[in-house]
């Protein structure tokens, strides 16, 4: 991997190629449930382009970030299904 980006998903370290979106890093970490819906259903990305808000995760402590629109950065702490 050229210039890998090191981040963590739910506390587990993962390295991804530069340019990878957080949504993909979450999927690569083996997480299928990105968030729970208001009635507790498992949800994951739908639109992939920032409109549906199904891929929301917490990034560096900030909740409700659309993971499909945020490129991975070194040291990022991502929490899915918070």
């Amino acid at each position, binding site marked *: 991997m050229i210039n890998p980006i090191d981040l963590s998903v739910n506390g587990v370290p993962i390295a*991804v*190629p*530069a*340019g*990878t*979106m957080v*949504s*993909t*890093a979450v*999927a*690569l970490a083996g997480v*299928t*449930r*990105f968030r729970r*819906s*208001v*009635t507790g*259903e*498992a*949800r*994951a*990305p*739908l*639109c*992939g*382009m*920032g*409109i*549906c*808000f*199904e891929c*929301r995760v917490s990034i560096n402590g900030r909740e*409700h*970030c659309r993971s*499909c*629109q*945020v*490129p991975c950065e070194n040291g990022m702490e991502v929490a899915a299904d918070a």
Partner: protein
Amino acid sequence: MPDCDVLVIGAGPAGLAAATRAAETGASVAMVDDNPHPGGQIWRAAAGKAPQDAARWIHSAEQHQVEWIAGARVFAAPAPNRIAVEKFDGELELGYRSLILATGARERFLPFPGWTLPNVMGAGGLQALAKSGLPVEGKKIVIAGSGPLLLAVAKYMKEHAADVRLIAEQATQSALLAFGLRLAAHPGKLIQAVGLRAALLGIPYLTSCWPVAAEGKDKLEAVTLSRGERTWTERCDYLACGFGLVPNTEIAALLGCRLSDGSVAVDEQQQTSITNVYSAGEATGIGGLELALVEGEIAGFAAAGASARARTLFAARDRYRKFAEALEHAFAPREELKALPREETLVCRCEDVTLGRVRSCTGWREAKLHTRCGMGPCQGRVCGAAVEFLLGWKSESVRPPVFPTRIESLTRTEPPA
């Protein structure tokens, strides 16, 4: 003082063409987009490498000193000739003399049982994830819904060694044949279609076919499809499903631009009902790449005051518009799809509202007040098109903020007292 002569919202093909042409005339131009890279959805770069025609436009915009503001979503218009945008690390206001709305389109999602399961995605949705690095090699994928996008996604997945099981196109074979004949009048499109067909060799392309249920425990495991009398189940890892595209009109509506038939209404210079606001590309009606480019060029020239140069492109635009009409006709969602969701199927994924609860209301206003349908973070961007198709309700007016926005962004952009 405006920050720029021409501000372009959206950096897809229409926005890039508009920004470049406006800048060519000597105007100062800025371009904002929610995404980290220019190119929009169709030119979404795989690992930072844009396709060749995209690279040409992006390079051209750069050469003409178009200011590029990435990762910025517009959420309000706090004063005349000003918009407010939020970035990951803060917000800013931008002033303009002329505005070009090149806000593109999103996929039309229609509910069916199981459509909220993880790994059921839009067709463009799965492609966007794959381009961002999601490995699809060896993954079993069913592609379903409607429109040319399904073919493009299938081609991409096959090129990346996915196991594409089939493409389920809801339109009839006869509608597609009629559309195919019209393609002959558009050589560029015909070459594209032929190229796709060769690439798709070996993938069943089933017309009059659609998913009736997605099944799985914690995530998608299989999809049940229906075609005429036949119903069967395909095991798969991903279902990529989108029923065509719908224009993104929220910012236009926020500014008070007139909408017509779900798109931003424009005159021959791509000007909206507001004098210094223009619109181009899919926001003005779904028409594909070539139409978006030429509309963008016209809007760019017109917004910069070069209406004579805009006029030289009208004939080309007319040709592509005819193609767009044929496209809309061939791939219009069929009545049968209205029967896909059951009463207990969720329509609004943000607030988990079932079809039964929405249907018990008299219209959008009551549905919003009584069930919160369309009131969640996506602000009806997903359920709006579904409810319009299923129940015939047109969504009502748009209010700021048009996107969920941080409190600190909102408080800093209050209009002057």
